[in-house]
């Protein structure tokens, strides 16, 4: 067992742990923090089903972003839809036998890699070209895009430039899953690709990538419009009611 394999194996276990625990912590924090008032952005759905559809449209179609700015929308869809297909394509490294639908996705996953990188480069260009977005960009916003572009580019290079032994890569990841470690090939572009993915997983719960759970917890989007029908009261606010009269003053 090479040192390289050991380092990467441990890195991935660490990254999965940080991602899982970090996200669990943040989701719990979002969950337990009360929303003291009804603040859905109106018009809002009148039923829970309606809210599910509203959130669904945000997550799947980026509805609000579409209303806002078609350029950001197109680029964001290219990136996110591309990433989704790429992740689906990569499931073949973790499943044996490979699931049926993962097989179907394979050819699309390749194009999706290009779409993803194109979307990211477009979004990055806007951080330089549009004065408003240049103003609001922190170094971390640029670095996040750089990280994702590098992941995408190194991944594409593994397909088109410096191919690696993907059978062995798959053996490595299945080995991680079954706690039966197998050697990892040592091509630099593979190591770069995997190292950056692990880094992304570690950064995730400490960064703006928290928009992923955040979108589901946003009170302006996940609340039902029923304030008149159903009293909404935060536990911490209930004691304020105790001092009041419930009878007419004489």
């Amino acid at each position, binding site marked *: 067992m090479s040192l390289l394999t050991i380092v990467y194996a441990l890195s991935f276990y660490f990254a999965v742990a940080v991602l899982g625990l970090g996200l669990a912590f943040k989701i719990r924090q979002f969950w337990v923090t009360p929303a003291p008032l009804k603040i859905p952005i*109106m018009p809002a*759905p009148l039923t829970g089903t309606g809210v599910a559809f509203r959130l669904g449209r945000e997550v799947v179609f980026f509805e609000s972003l579409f209303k806002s700015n078609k350029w950001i929308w197109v680029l964001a869809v290219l990136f996110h839809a591309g990433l989704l297909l790429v992740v689906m394509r990569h499931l073949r490294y973790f499943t044996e036998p490979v699931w049926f639908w993962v097989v179907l996705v394979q050819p699309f996953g390749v194009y999706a890699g290009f779409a993803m990188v194109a979307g990211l480069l477009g979004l990055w260009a806007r951080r330089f070209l549009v004065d408003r977005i240049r*103003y609001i960009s922190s170094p971390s916003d640029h670095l996040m895009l750089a990280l994702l572009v590098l992941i995408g580019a190194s991944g594409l290079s593994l397909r088109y430039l410096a191919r690696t032994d993907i059978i062995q890569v798959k053996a490595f990841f299945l080995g991680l899953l079954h706690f039966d470690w197998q050697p990892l090939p040592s091509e630099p572009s593979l190591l770069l690709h995997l190292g950056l993915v692990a880094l992304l997983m570690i950064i995730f719960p400490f960064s703006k990538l928290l928009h992923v759970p955040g979108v589901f917890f946003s009170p302006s989007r996940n609340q039902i419009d029923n304030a008149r029908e159903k009293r909404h009261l935060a536990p911490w606010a209930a004691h304020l009611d105790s001092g009041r009269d419930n009878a007419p003053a004489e």
Partner: protein
Amino acid sequence: MAKAPTFDIPAFREDLASPAVVPGAMDHSQPFVASPDHQADLGFPGELVDDWETKAVEKLGELLEKNRALRVYLDSCVKCGACTDKCHYYIGTGDPKNMPVARQDLLRSVYRRNFTLAGKLMPKLVGARDLDKDLLDDWYKYFHQCSQCRRCAVFCPYGIDTAEISMAAREIMDHIGVGQKYCNEIIGKVHKIGNNLGLPKPALINTMEGLEEDVEEETGITVRFPVDVKGADVLLVTPSADFFAEPHVDGLIGYAKVFHQAGISWTVSSYASEAANFAMFIGSYEQMHKVAARIRQAALDLGVKRIVFGECGHAWRVAYSFLNSLAGPWDFLDPKYPKPQHILEVTNGLIKSGAINLDTTANDDKVLTFHDSCNVARGSRMGDVEGGQFIIPREVIKASVNKFVDMDPGTINEKTFCCGGGGGLLTDDLMELRVKGALPRMEALKDVVDNHGVTHMAAICAICKSQFAKVMPYYGFPMDMIISVHQLVGDAILLGTKE
């Protein structure tokens, strides 16, 4: 005509393009600071407290525990830029700190520095900052250049609502002794006297009697304007500007005529003679609760069956969305009616059922458009269908006038622009901001005036009406172009035609 301004009136944009960033363009704009007395009335420290940096961060920590929205919004922004050109204050000033995300970042930078691992370890990298005097000054300036209209949140992929952020920032500032005079003085008046304008009971009764005489003189019919009548069916809670300001008072006359003609007994309360709840603007749940409790007490004292709110934007947001939380449950009111109800819901229902009749030709001298007030549009509803807050006012207007034209679709309904004076900014010390913030609405109005001959714009918010009456002359529109929706109703209603 308004007196000559000391600032440039923004020009109407040819192509409605997003303005270029002009750093520091509104760095000089800030409202008067609340005096120690005004602060004391609300239980806030009178001046900047010792060790305020620590206390501000502690307060932020407390709010993070109490308000999910704040926590989620501070964590979730990806700086995509979707909101950057959606704020009327950015459009009117070009100041980059008026871009919603940049405004949020004034607070988010402190959140990241004190409450996130990345901000503690690598502040420069993630835009985290310690709260210092410079940043506090920026908080005071730019969280008072947000009218909490929520337009940015419509366009945000995560629904991040800058109103929640600016409310939290104002709450923190109040707790370290830096309050805003306009809001805090007014909330004190509500506690002491019962309304924002400090109108005492005798003056209120006197005003209402005067209105009764005016209407009788004009129509020959006795339309009652009751105050503190026990056992009335309806408690009307309306912004105190309705009692005498123009064009608000014509709306109040309209409500009275509607109640009269429908045979509904009603009263205002001298104890709760104010619909407004400015505590929302300063983000104080406790103050909002205290102000809302007056309405509950008035309803109990007067033994009413229904509560109806007059034309007021943020008051209707508080009434529709918050009143059940703040002052409910309303189980002592008649369950047949929504609790509370908007006057437009009442009027529209009466028109539909034929209980009142309107003669649209009474308003044939006017071509109307309608300004959706931000808090009604994005913070509330009317009626029982999604978007009823857009439908019902228009139905009532169309039942009262023959000629109605909507403004550009990008400036109405959920995408409506704030009048420029909401959120506790309707004060003369912010006049430049108010004029510049009205630009997008004035552009949309100009379009329907030039192309459709619009003569009047109706609104359903006391702040909108006051703001437009003040700023429209800067843009070449007469101040009496802005009118109350219930003025149209009041002018068109057929009084005494039924038995």
